[in-house]
């Protein structure tokens, strides 16, 4: 289907805001079950809506009307940002719905809670994606045909799950270490299931807009739409697609209005359509229009975060690992419990942002990690999150004692089995030793083994005595 002249520019914007947690002290556990900083969430949402979502949506709608179907973009809205729009900025949701009705905007599926569930197991991941898909149908009236994972996390395995769910394409980072000599400017497909097409982010051209746009020290400054179109023309003529992926908040929030970012976006479609061979296409359109040039091997997960393009921003230290492990250890029970309030908190607690705040990379490479970060440091983030998670567990235990009982029973059964096994082995050992013992007795007839046992027993006794005296001592000290 692709002809040599046809080239695609794929613009994709991520829209996400987490429910930030309030300061939650340990002594509130079991008493207070509300976890969110409403004031902060509302004020950040209102601020970003005024600076970015509303004006940028307006501009994109204008461009769609002006270019009569030739300007096409892709968005992904997390389930949480949709919830926040409904609470704090319903007019933003209205304007996204208006975009959806133009037919020029594609919305991607993803995990409902911007979670790391793809790193735990297939079932949790799939469940979250279908929750999100239902949300998209309910609030935007569209059913997603392609998918993006949280922070563009992708691996061969995750890709195969996406394919199994029937998605046509996904997007991820054009990370140097997976591409090698290959170019991100072609369509690829999943290794396990080639039906899933993979679009790779051109980080050079994406970050020129997202990070470098307003940097006066950058050689490309000031960036205009014409200059940008010129760069596209300088790419290898064989290039078929250029994937420009970024946070939607780039427009008006990361790059403020005064930097001219909106003007850049306003003139971009004209410059691209008139001066380059590229056309605007959405993710699924690219997947339909082009043939994959090869499979892309991603044995271990990558993401679009930080210099390393790996998972270390969320799973890079002991704090993060402990928190993620603790969180997902509860998943089975939450699902079988099914209480609505619990499930809502369960969803919000999964947001990858909570783990991002715990990154100790923050100390060295802080700028991005500090963005909208409600905590002074990763330790505080961890402490607060774990306190909340502990309360969540307390609630889970008290609200769903039945399933708790079941799992407890299962656990006890397991440990009984394990003990039986140990006992069996020990019995074997004992009988063996007894045999040897009787042999030795026959040969030597000494009493040594008995003595040994006695010595050990007194040793233990001595130790425990010491313990009690220690305690007595300290008690006496406190009375003085």
């Amino acid at each position: 289907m692709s002809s040599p002249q046809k080239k695609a520019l794929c613009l994709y914007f991520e829209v996400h805001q987490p429910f930030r947690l309030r300061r939650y002290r340990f002594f509130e556990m079991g008493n207070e079950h509300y976890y969110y900083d409403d004031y902060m969430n509302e004020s950040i949402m209102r601020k970003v809506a005024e600076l970015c979502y509303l004006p940028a949506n307006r501009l994109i709608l204008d461009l769609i009307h002006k270019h009569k179907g030739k300007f096409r973009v892709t968005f992904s809205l997390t389930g949480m940002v949709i919830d926040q729009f409904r609470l704090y900025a319903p007019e933003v949701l209205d304007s996204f719905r208006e975009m959806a009705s133009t037919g020029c905007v594609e919305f991607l599926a993803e995990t409902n809670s911007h979670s790391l569930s793809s790193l735990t197991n297939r079932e949790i991941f799939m469940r979250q994606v279908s929750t999100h898909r239902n949300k998209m149908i309910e609030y935007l009236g569209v059913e997603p045909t392609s998918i993006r994972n949280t922070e563009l996390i992708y691996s061969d395995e995750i890709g195969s799950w996406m394919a199994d769910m029937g998605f046509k394409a996904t997007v991820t980072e054009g990370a140097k270490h997976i591409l090698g000599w290959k170019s991100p400017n072609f369509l690829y497909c999943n290794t396990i299931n080639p039906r899933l097409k993979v679009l790779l982010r051109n980080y050079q051209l994406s970050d020129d807009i997202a990070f470098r746009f307003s940097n006066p020290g950058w050689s490309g400054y000031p960036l205009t739409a014409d200059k940008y179109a010129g760069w596209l023309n300088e790419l290898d003529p064989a290039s078929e697609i250029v994937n420009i992926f970024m946070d939607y908040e780039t427009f008006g929030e990361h790059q403020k209005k005064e930097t001219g970012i909106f003007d850049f976006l306003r003139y971009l479609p004209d410059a691209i359509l008139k001066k380059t061979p590229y056309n605007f296409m959405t993710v699924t359109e690219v997947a339909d229009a082009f043939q994959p040039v090869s499979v892309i091997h991603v044995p271990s997960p990558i993401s679009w975060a930080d210099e390393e393009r790996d998972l270390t921003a969320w799973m890079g230290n002991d704090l993060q690992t402990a928190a993620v492990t603790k969180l997902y250890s509860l998943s089975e029970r939450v699902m079988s419990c099914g209480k609505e309030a619990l499930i809502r908190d369960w969803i919000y607690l999964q947001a990858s942002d909570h783990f991002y705040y715990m990154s100790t990379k923050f100390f060295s490479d802080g700028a991005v990690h500090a963005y909208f970060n409600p905590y002074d440091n990763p330790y505080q983030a961890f402490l607060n999150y774990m306190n909340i998670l502990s309360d969540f567990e307390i609630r889970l235990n008290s609200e769903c004692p039945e399933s708790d009982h079941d799992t407890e029973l299962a656990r006890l059964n397991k440990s009984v089995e394990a003990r039986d096994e140990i006992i069996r082995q020990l019995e074997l050992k004992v009988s063996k030793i007894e045999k040897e013992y009787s042999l030795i007795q026959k040969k030597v007839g000494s009493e040594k083994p008995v003595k040994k046992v006695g010595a050990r027993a007194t040793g233990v006794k001595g130790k425990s005595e010491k313990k009690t005296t220690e305690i007595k001592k300290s008690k006496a000290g406190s009375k003085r």
Partner: protein
Amino acid sequence: MRVLMFGWEFPPHIAGGLGTASYGLTRGLAALNDIEVLFVVPKAWGDEDQNIVRLIGANTIPVAFKTIRYSSTLRSVEKIEVGSKLVPYTDPEDFWKMTRSNISDTDVLLNTNNEGKIEFSGSYGATLLDEIQKYAIVSSVIASENQFDVIHAHDWLAYPAGIAAKAVSGKPLVIHVHATDFDRSGGNVNPQVFKIEKEGMEYADKIITVSNLTRDIVIKKYGIKPSKVQTVYNAVEPMHFTEVTKPFRGVSDKIVTFLGRITMQKGPEYFIEAAKMVLSKMSDVRFVMAGSGDMMEKMIRRAASLNITDRFHFTGFLRGNDVFTMLGMSDVYVMPSVSEPFGISPLEAMQSNVPVIISKQSGVAEVLTHAVKVDFWDIEAMADAIYGILSYPALSKTFVQKGKEEVDKLKWEKAAKQVHDIYLRVVK
């Protein structure tokens, strides 16, 4: 370059952070090639480590019947013999206790040379201030009998000595502010001490403060020109013993430790209140308040009225290795100081693999990343941090690991280099 340094105490005869810090700095300086330090203390005991410095005790200098001519005033002063009975704290009660317990000090007083011998008045304020003045007089003798390029005086007790040495020699004076009376008194400053401190700061060519917290106090409260005041952070001596053995613990409970003088400056009451909060949620934890001080009895009464004495223990004053044993037994170290110019003890805790919680009102908070920092009055945050470190092993583990890495980088050599730079600037 030769440095004439005036201190107040020298290991092993130290009562607090001042002696530790001035010793550490001296060691750091000694490691630099071209620096030679003459360290003067009011009283030398003879068993000090003299490998790195030449230590001079003011009590060993024969000063009787000497006439010193001050270069600035040309006023002649007849010298007198000095015996010393000295503590680096202005708290009358501390001083009273020390006087009572240390009989040998009294002996020293009585044993001074008959000629030029001085009677001590007996009352606290007059005696200490008297001693400071005597120290200053001896220092002028020392200054006139030794060759040096720069004078360095540690803390207010030694400022008059530094001033006197500068008056005699005309050499530049650097004073080192380890604390101010605003820290010690909680704002209720002793006007005489304030006067000595301010004179020292004004007379100095350069002022070194142990943190920006202290630097701000020097600038704002003493009205010193900011350009004259520079912060050089303290460091910590590497652990002497290579293997850190966890001492035997008689109880399986977790231990949370406060270690320091039990005085208003150290914020012991906030520790007790935080303990109460933690104990309301956790049972397998014990709190230890190690140290002594004028607020100890009040603290015991408070613990009793909160009904936590079964879990809250007082050890009294700890000496030498007991300190490290206590630290080694601890799971969390808390320093809730109301005003702490620096605070070396959290660094020692970190060396002993203990996570630390420190108040934001401490100088050490400026250099540490891997420590919990709370406002001293924020007992909720303090309790929360204690609970978190005890309950979430990943947190404790990270603090221990990163904290150790961090504290190992705080070297006296680095501080000494900065001080050396300051010397070079004032000598020019």
